[in-house]
């Protein structure tokens, strides 16, 4: 099927996104995705961060090295293998087969450092979209096209993009392809500050892409352009007697206020359906500091509930199960 006439698959595409680094995007993405898989959903992780942290989490370092070395060969199967023909203008997206991870129903398209080469061209592609150029649309929607093709072939229910900590053109294409996004925030002043740029940037992306979509020629495969906000996840705070410790507790209302004023209200200026819930409903979850469990899980390439003692494991599973169930509920019917 020619790419231009491909229909969008029904899988829900989600990004756990914040351009501030160190808020636990990758860890959250893996654990939420794994929880969804454990609940019976078929989940695709698309590592679209050129730093490949998500891939390194799930795949042995030697295997990662091999994959990166062979990404430009016929054996290649990273995200760069897929988008390289588009970046180099030689052909359409090469649909690669995802890796079946050790977690059942969880698939991975590995990241690649070379993806930054694709990101450079995205500036030009974006401009070409405003000029209604097919080449531009092909450029900005390359990752979306890949997610779409793999979703159809593997009957995927959820796609998670993992993104780097910036508001560059790659993340713009990713967010504009997403049906939903959640914002992770940590308990510090920078996290609160970052919400301002986050909301405003998303506003501009959605507004500009709406112009592009309205002027685009017929029968072009387009990014969806409507990332709906499903909520925020506050994380990495320490607990004392099952309550956030005082120093962290002070930040929670500030984050919540920031989410309302800088993300929800800003998106609603553009279109109410981009943030459809009432302001008290956006708390998706609070993830406490799992202490030694998080690095242990990362080392073993497994979800957090797979490490620690039975009690710790049960607690971790309950947290992520609740998050996954909320995501299922909030992404239904869109």
């Amino acid at each position, binding site marked *: 099927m020619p790419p231009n006439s491909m229909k969008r698959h029904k899988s829900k595409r989600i990004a756990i996104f914040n351009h501030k680094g160190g808020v636990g995007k990758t860890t959250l993405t893996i654990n939420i995705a794994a929880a969804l898989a454990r609940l019976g959903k078929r989940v695709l992780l698309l590592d679209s961060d050129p730093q490949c942290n998500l891939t390194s989490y799930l795949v042995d370092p030697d295997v990662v090295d091999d994959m990166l070395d062979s990404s430009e060969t016929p054996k290649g199967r990273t995200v760069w293998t897929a988008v390289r023909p588009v970046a180099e203008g030689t052909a359409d997206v090469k649909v690669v087969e995802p890796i079946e991870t050790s977690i059942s129903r969880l698939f991975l398209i590995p990241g690649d450092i070379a993806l930054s080469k694709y990101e450079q061209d995205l500036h030009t592609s974006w401009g070409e979209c*405003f*000029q*209604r150029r097919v080449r531009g649309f092909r450029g900005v929607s390359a990752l979306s096209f890949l997610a779409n093709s793999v979703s159809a072939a593997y009957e995927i229910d959820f796609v998670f993009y993992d993104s780097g900590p910036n508001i560059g053109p790659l993340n713009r294409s990713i967010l504009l392809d997403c049906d939903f996004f959640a914002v992770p925030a940590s308990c510090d002043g920078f996290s609160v500050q970052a919400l301002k740029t986050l909301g405003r940037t998303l506003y501009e992306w959605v507004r500009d892409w709406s*112009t592009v979509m*309205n002027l685009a*020629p*017929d029968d072009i495969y387009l990014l969806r352009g409507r990332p709906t906000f499903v909520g925020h996840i506050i994380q990495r705070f320490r607990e004392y007697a099952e309550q956030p410790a005082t120093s962290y507790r002070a930040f929670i209302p500030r984050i919540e206020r920031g989410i309302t004023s800088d993300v929800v209200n800003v998106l609603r200026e553009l279109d109410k359906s981009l943030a459809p819930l009432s302001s008290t409903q956006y708390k998706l979850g609070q993830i406490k500091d799992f202490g030694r469990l998080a690095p242990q899980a990362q080392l073993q390439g497994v979800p957090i509930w797979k490490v620690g003692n039975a009690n710790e494991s049960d607690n971790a599973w309950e947290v992520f199960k609740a998050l996954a169930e909320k995501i299922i509920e909030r992404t239904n019917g869109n």
Partner: protein
Amino acid sequence: MATKAQKKLIEELVRHYRERIPEFKTFASVLRTQILGSPMLRKHIRFIRVRIKEPDHLRDKLYRKLKEATDKRKKFSYSKKNLFVKINDLAGLRIIHLHTQQIIPVRDGLRTLFDEERYRVVAGPTARIWDEEYKRFFKDAGIATKTGKTLYTSVHYVLKPNRKTPITCELQVRTLLEEVWGEVDHELNYPHESDILACREQLAALARATWSCNRLIDAIYRTKADADQRRGMDS
């Protein structure tokens, strides 16, 4: 006299248009770039003018339409849903060429461009023309003709970017001398028709004068083309 509800509706329509102005601007400017980038077209074009309707002028127009509807005891049928379908000149692009025969290669160049760039032609080409000799010329060129109430002349197209989006861009193609008359007419009669008889009379006379010059330019180019052809046959 507009009712409160009608005034509110007109203000809503103007606001709706104001919000979409960036789209109209982008549409017109992309089309301009594509036309100037077309080797088939650019050699025939003197210049292109792009115009986006001022929101205040849309408001005036809607009040005029409201008055017309009231006078005829008809319903004022404009809504947010049909505004961009009913009003097609919110974004306008004018291609100016030198002599009338150039409309043939311009028409062909535009047809190719619209196909390649996947525009939808929702109206046109239609030539507004009052001169009988030229009506025949346009008909022979496969361009429909229309005689308006004024002495305005131009070939019109209305384009859409795709099936779904309601916004349109009006494209006018005319000669430099048609543009001269059109500009004076616009200054004098837009947005409200002049009530000075002398000006209206002089404008009618100017239409004939510019049209004669236009005819003379056409004659010069026809003569030149004929001479070139003969010279080619001789050698």
